[in-house]
């Protein structure tokens, strides 16, 4: 039984004079910054001492509102060394309204009850504005008031008294709904995941992980931060904001550091294939990559193919393109396609799948579709497919994916009600639909009303609430849903809103207002808005808007207008 601090201490002892760093931080326009284990522990120790100074107790939650950089790395591991529970929250972006950000932060504080928030001095005012008298936050710690010249004394650090079953970190997804569900993970659960996942990947010290993924999502936090640091595998880390403006840098970094593993959401394959110019990747060598793992949104064969075609002349191997199915509730990975060969694809009858929701082999030349496997369950994970009553279903029958493992969440933090609802007879119900064939898991859709845009989970009810705030839109007269965009390889959010007016100009004005309001107040940039006249939106008998019925109606009209 071990804990994060124990593992860090071991790594520190075995890597006193490392010739390669634990983390290489990359920035736009300046030199890469290597951080050795010794530097990492000293930087973290300074934060741990600061938490002691501020009276933060082990077991209390500390929220980190920091951007890509040294402070984020040190603050995270500093909280760990002190035995506090870190949770990383996204930083305010240019497009987001400060008022919304404050409201989200207040919502997070009210449920999670953190004892401290760590941020930059210039952002402290913004953070304080979200706080209320008498709430849990005892101190807002700023990065220029961190204890200096602290001695690294393992015996003095409270984190070494933590137990393996204790909660080590919290992970939230975005939006009003997501912020109220902090996934609480124990040291032991994370190590069980790292052991099983490391085995699936044949992870060893010759690996180099390259990542641009944000640390407030499970994929970035686990695969692109915690796993490499705790496994002694070097991590090359860039900011998501730099990547989106210059996706070629990821390729340059793989080449420079001989990267062997990276994780990408499906849209990133399309984005990279379409938007990288030859002039930016001259001489780049991608042959060191053992696996590029497609994860966190539905995996598409077409996206892999486009990526491969674009980069094969740079040494990219087709068999390096892999898939995984993952979720924060299982720490991260549930399944992984076996490395070294192309993931299994299943040709199935399109109509049977779309209409009857069953998986059949295509026959008589009927149209087929290619489902890509997300791989096999990790050694410590059991997966089964269940029907609405929770009964197990046979091979190739579509149902809800349920799982059992020794790396499940401890619970949703301070939300025992949600934690209880998530399980049925000891099985965690994922809210995803899928089927199993020859031991391979195929994910086919979602039960829960959630849209995945570029790897980000957004809840339609949050977007609809925002739409109601726009003048001219009445409560209950809007629906939000996702529509798959082939070119981008991800879902595009569509918002339909009903207004009293049939006037096109008037509707246009409301559409613009919705686009602006939703973009400023959510994690997405909304593009597709359709404002319609009275009685367009279909309602169910309960009065609730039926998202799928309206989506169908919208798609039909779109088809007709083409």
């Amino acid at each position, binding site marked *: 039984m071990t804990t994060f601090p124990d593992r860090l201490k071991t790594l520190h002892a075995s890597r006193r004079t490392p010739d390669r760093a634990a983390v290489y931080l990359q920035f*736009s*326009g300046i030199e890469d910054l290597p951080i050795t284990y010794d530097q990492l522990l000293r930087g973290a120790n300074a934060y741990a001492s600061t938490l002691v100074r501020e009276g933060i107790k082990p077991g209390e939650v500390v929220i980190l509102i920091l951007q890509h950089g040294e402070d984020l790395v040190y603050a995270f591991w500093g909280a760990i060394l002190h035995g506090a529970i870190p949770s990383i929250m996204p930083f305010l972006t*240019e*497009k987001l309204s400060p008022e919304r950000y404050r409201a989200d932060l207040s919502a997070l504080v009210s449920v999670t009850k953190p004892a401290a928030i760590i941020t930059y001095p210039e952002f402290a005012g913004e953070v304080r504005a979200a706080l209320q008298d008498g709430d849990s936050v005892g101190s807002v710690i700023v990065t220029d008031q961190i204890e200096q010249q602290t001695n690294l004394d393992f015996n003095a650090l409270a984190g070494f008294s933590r137990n393996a079953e204790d909660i080590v970190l919290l992970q939230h997804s975005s939006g009003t709904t997501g912020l109220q569900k902090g996934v609480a993970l124990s040291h032991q659960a994370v190590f069980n995941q790292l052991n099983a996942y490391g085995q699936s990947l044949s992870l060893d010290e010759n690996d180099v992980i390259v990542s641009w993924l944000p640390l407030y999502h499970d994929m970035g936090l686990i695969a692109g931060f915690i796993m490499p640091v705790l496994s002694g595998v070097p991590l090359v880390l860039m900011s998501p*904001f730099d990547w*989106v*403006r*210059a*996706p070629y840098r990821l390729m340059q970094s793989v080449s420079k550091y001989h990267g062997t593993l990276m994780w990408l959401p499906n849209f990133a394959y399309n*984005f990279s294939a379409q*938007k990288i110019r030859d002039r930016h990747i001259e001489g780049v060598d991608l042959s060191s990559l053992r696996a590029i793992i497609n994860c966190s949104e539905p995996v598409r064969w077409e996206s892999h193919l486009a990526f491969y075609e674009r980069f094969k002349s740079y040494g990219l191997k087709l068999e390096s393109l892999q898939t995984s199915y993952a979720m924060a509730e299982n720490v991260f990975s549930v399944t992984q396609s076996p490395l070294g060969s192309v993931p299994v694809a299943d040709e199935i009858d399109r109509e049977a799948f779309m209409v009857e929701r069953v998986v059949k082999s295509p026959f008589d030349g009927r149209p087929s579709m290619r489902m890509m496997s997300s791989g096999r369950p990790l050694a410590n994970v059991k997966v089964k497919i269940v029907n609405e009553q929770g009964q197990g279903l046979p091979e190739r029958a579509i149902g809800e994916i349920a799982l059992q493992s020794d790396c499940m969440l401890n619970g949703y933090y301070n939300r025992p009600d949600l934690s209880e609802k998530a399980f049925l007879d000891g099985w965690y119900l994922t809210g995803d639909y899928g089927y199993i064939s020859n031991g391979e898991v195929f994910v086919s859709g979602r039960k829960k009303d959630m849209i995945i845009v*570029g790897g980000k989970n957004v809840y339609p009810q949050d977007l609809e609430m925002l739409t109601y705030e726009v003048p001219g839109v009445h409560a209950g007269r809007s629906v939000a849903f996702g529509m798959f965009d082939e070119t981008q390889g991800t879902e595009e959010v569509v918002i339909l809103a009903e207004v009293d007016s049939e006037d096109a100009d008037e509707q*246009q004005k409301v*559409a613009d207002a919705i*686009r*602006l309001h939703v*973009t*400023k107040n959510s994690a997405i*940039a909304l*593009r*597709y808005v359709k404002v319609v006249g009275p009685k367009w939106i279909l309602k169910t008998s309960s009065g609730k808007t039926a998202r799928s019925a309206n989506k169908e109606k919208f798609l039909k009209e779109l088809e007709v207008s083409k």
Partner: protein
Amino acid sequence: MTDTIISNIESYIAAQILKQPNRRIASDESLISSGLIDSFSLMDLALFVEDTFGVRIEDTELNANTFDTLTQLASLVESRRK
């Protein structure tokens, strides 16, 4: 000249980014700081401008400080074409 550049970029943004071909965009309307164009679309816009006008826009320039309106983007294009 500037007008041609502006209307060319305007149609691209309306049709391809906003998915509303009939949408008009004022030449002084803010594009980036208003959230009308997000970071993913910004990359598309830069590639479109590079290909259409034969100029280069570096990734470090993809922000509201370099250009935030059609007028500013058009003058950036013109200055690079000389």
